[in-house]
């Protein structure tokens, strides 16, 4: 190791700083494996021929008296730097080289935890947002009567509005009165009726659940899917309350920069009715493939509870209490909303085939670990 001892010509502070910076770079540049740590130590810190010793001897010898202290301080700092580098090398686990050591690059052995289903995760997130807004969870059966699924929600028998919800009917219902006929609920809205019959206002409920329609399966349709429904009934509930609630919920779900847009729509059980779009969460409204270049994504339907629905509820409540008047539409009002969970989860995660949610395919699920 025949290295030259660097010359130090001036002992003023800037020259010292520059000279030591060069040495510090030299130390840093000298990367070494733990196996070479001893050689490194000897090179720099050897008691007789260590480079630090040689340099300090050379520089101190010719240093003016008032430069000795700054020199000493800097030598100490350099020494510390070398020691830290050494300590780190010794502490570092041996790389793939050590025969006696582990091959730490092998995979770990703990069995991975299970993966929450992305759809149910999304559904739980939506429900949590409404819990925070003061909505309590309400649930209802998947097999419903015609009354709860349609009639009470202002879908009269033989009404074209029923065409929009292809319904799976249970066998053996022909002999029963039409309102009692059983079917697979086509939406979570019957829980609105059940809740209102059971309970006087004020109501704030959020209803997650599974629904079924007689739809052939394709990339975006499934005979089984999930909805989250919400209902708010109280005195003085307005359309602007509906707007504010959903705007808040969409921001809570998708981020505070998301904008909402409301369009008139039609649902038999709400009046006025609206469809709600959010600004595309991928392109922030600029237009992209996911939003079909519109800048907007349609996510839910909503509206003010139709007075006919309140009347149906009152009629049922009066069977138990002839004086029941808690749902008098002249005194109370409310809003309801419903959203398809699959659609939201598909938008969130860029899922193109709805069927993957129901396949139990580990390769699909593992993406959400």
């Amino acid at each position: 190791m025949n290295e030259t001892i660097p010359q130090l010509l001036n002992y003023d502070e800037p020259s010292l700083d520059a000279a030591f910076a060069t040495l510090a770079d030299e130390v840093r540049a000298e990367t070494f494996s733990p196996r070479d740590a001893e050689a490194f130590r000897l090179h720099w810190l050897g008691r007789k021929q260590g480079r630090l010793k040689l340099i300090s001897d050379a520089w101190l010898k010719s240093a003016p008296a008032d430069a000795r202290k700054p020199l000493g301080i800097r030598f100490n700092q350099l020494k510390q730097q070398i020691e830290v580098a050494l300590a780190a090398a010794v502490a570092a686990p041996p790389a793939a080289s050590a025969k006696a050591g582990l091959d730490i690059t092998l995979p770990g052995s703990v069995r991975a935890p299970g993966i929450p289903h992305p759809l149910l995760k999304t559904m739980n997130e939506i429900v949590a947002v409404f819990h925070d807004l003061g909505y309590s969870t309400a649930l209802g059966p998947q097999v419903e009567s015609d009354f709860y699924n349609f009639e009470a929600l202002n879908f009269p028998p033989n009404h074209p509005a029923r065409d929009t919800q292809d319904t799976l009917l249970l066998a053996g219902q022909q002999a029963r009165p039409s309102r009692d006929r059983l079917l697979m609920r086509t939406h979570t809205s019957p829980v609105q009726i059940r809740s209102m019959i059971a309970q006087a206002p004020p109501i704030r409920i959020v209803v997650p659940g599974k629904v079924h329609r007689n739809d052939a399966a394709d990339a975006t349709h499934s005979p089984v899917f999930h909805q989250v429904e919400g209902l708010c009934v109280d005195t003085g509930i307005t359309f602007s309350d509906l707007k504010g609630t959903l705007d808040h919920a969409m921001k809570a779900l998708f981020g505070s920069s998301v904008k909402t847009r409301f369009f008139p729509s039609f649902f038999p059980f709400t009046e006025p009715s609206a469809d709600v779009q959010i600004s595309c969460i991928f392109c922030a409204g600029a237009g992209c493939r996911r939003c079909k270049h519109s800048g907007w994504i349609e996510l839910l339907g909503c509206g003010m509870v139709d007075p006919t629905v309140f009347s149906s509820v009152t009629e049922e409540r009066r069977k138990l209490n002839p004086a029941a008047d808690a749902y008098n539409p002249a005194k109370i009002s409310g809003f309801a909303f419903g959203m398809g969970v699959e659609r939201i989860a598909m938008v969130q995660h860029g899922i193109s085939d709805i069927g993957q949610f129901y396949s139990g395919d580990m390769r699909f699920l593992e993406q959400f670990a």
Partner: protein
Amino acid sequence: MNILSNWLRSYVHGITADDRQLAEDLTLRGIAVEGVHDLGLGNGHLFEMDITTNRVDAMNHYGIAREAATIYNLPLAPLDTALPAAQPAPNPFSVQIAPEAQSLCGRFTARVLRNVTITPSTGQVAGFFALLGSKPISNAVDASNFVLQGMGHPTHAFDLDKIDGGIVVRLAHKGERLKLLDGSERTLEADDLVIADHTKALSIAGVMGGWDSMITAETKNILVEAAWFDPVSIRRSSRRHGLHTDASHRFERGADLNACPVANALVAELILQSGGAPEGELVDVIVPSVAARTANRHPIALSLRQVRRHLGTTLDDQPGQSALTADLVRQVLTALGCTLTEAATNGLQPITSNQQQTTFSVQLPSWRLDLEREIDLVEEVARVYGYNRFANTLPTALPVIAHPLAAAESAVRARLLALGYSEAISSSFASEADGAAFVTTNRNQQSTPHGLIALENPLSDEARLLRPSLAPGMLTMLAHNLNRDVREVRLFEQGTIFTGSAEQVVESPSLSLGLTGDLPPTRLHNAKDAAVFELKSVIESLLSLFAASVDALSTSAASALAFSPDAPAWLQPGRSATALLNGAPIACFGELVANQREARKLRQPVFLAVLDLDALYRLPLRRAAARELSRFQAVERDFSFTFADAVQWRTIAQAIAALAIPELTRLTPVEIFRDAKTASAPAASVAPAGHYALLLRCVFQSTQRTLREDELSEWSTRLIAALSALGGTIRT
């Protein structure tokens, strides 16, 4: 439905917005334009519309033009017609609505056209049809179609010379036959409404015309029909005959009674452009009772207070001044065709400056049968004003009440995820074969029927039933993975199963577990059995969330969780078990029976468990109770015994528990050795055939003091004696 922007603009002059802006403005008012297609220079755009079912009035160009006129506050052009002078008719054409059909046909207009020429369409009709991509047929047929698309009312043109006598609107005779325009031969029911002549049915009213009276190249004289039919009746016939036509689509949503004469004149005008003349005046039969409940409904009251009560705050509101004013209401509703008169709210009160008191009496337009109530008008105000001009306000929040089962469900879910099982959702349906094979019969529900639930209109043969068990769905998911070379799978599903009868369906929460994979042996189980024991420990772990944990040293067998080797037939006998909680079955698990595995062509063994969550959720979640930890040293003693295979662990544990040594705090089977046939060394032969060696670990500890060597030896001696009594041999 498609709309041409040029056609639409022909009804409203002065729209300054371009076509794309027009589409956007319509969409924001609920007249949804789903697509805008450029038709080339001068041709405007084609709008793909998605009109909601309640807005049949907007399923045509004129109706949408009315919306545009309302949005831009522009006048809507009237639908004027100019017909050639009518030739005198010897007698007015005979139209009768049979008494039983009076409520179903509210209006029937008929006009006779003589000496017409049947030719291909030209001019505006041909031009618009080309842009719409509609196939032209002939001037007479196209006229009807053009008017339908133009102003929305369905009409029909008959070959007058095929009509015998005159028109009778009546119910069909049961079994009456009619050949329709599409060439199909229909057998009618007694509640099908038909347009007939004096001898035969000519068409199914409002659904489809008949073959025999259709317009042909030879037609010389035409009868133009424009009528109003009852929505429910049309819908019934349309569905019964599987005929969903443009006409039925509109009639079943509620047509405009007053549109009949206008539509009739428009059709006649178009046909007569190629020659011919009307004969006699328009025959117009109106059923007053139907007119009273459709076109001539009573006015309804609309108060400004209700508008504001339902709609709330707008972005345009000034302090103390709502932007929802009486003027706004009047302007919007008038443009939509309503006639508003301000009603005195109370005859004695002078009109106050407070507009809140304003109440209108609103005469509804005949084409808006969807408007019936005050709330419908409130919606119209909001819709035209613009939903996005309303403010975002929040109602007060209420305290949230946790769902009674939420904690239990979430505990089960969290535990299963922690144990490495991923969450899955399978089909709600099952085939009849699977329903029969997998139905759980040990449910504790004698009081309710627990039959299978079938669907009337299943999606497929494989989905005839509502699932009575989660097991078939889980198997399908395991198979899905195995068929894609995913060989290690752990899944669970928390779902609903359905049993009961057609009158009463019982929905019960259930849990399924699915496991397949190449599991390594453990110190107690060989590789082949490892999966069964994994499922057992998962079930124990779940139950421990609710019930006291299972303790080998427990002496009260009935209170604890027990496992019986009996299991349903879909599990392999001898490789499956039922878990009993307090003596009642709560879960079963094990390897899938061979015939089911073969039927599903599964390439490796699969293991399933189903657990009755209904029973589990009846238990409260266990509240853990802490005990004092001993400050004194615990002493571990291992014992190695050889037992005959017939001696089960439970017997051994019970024998030790029966010693009732309070200081024995833990008893664990550490390892089981069986004489492997492939033993590498003779020394490995640890147990004779039919026997196994068991390494048993006992932990002794007192909460009071340090244990003495002599007590430990005494306990060991008693323990060895007890196990020797079971036929065990201590190994040294």
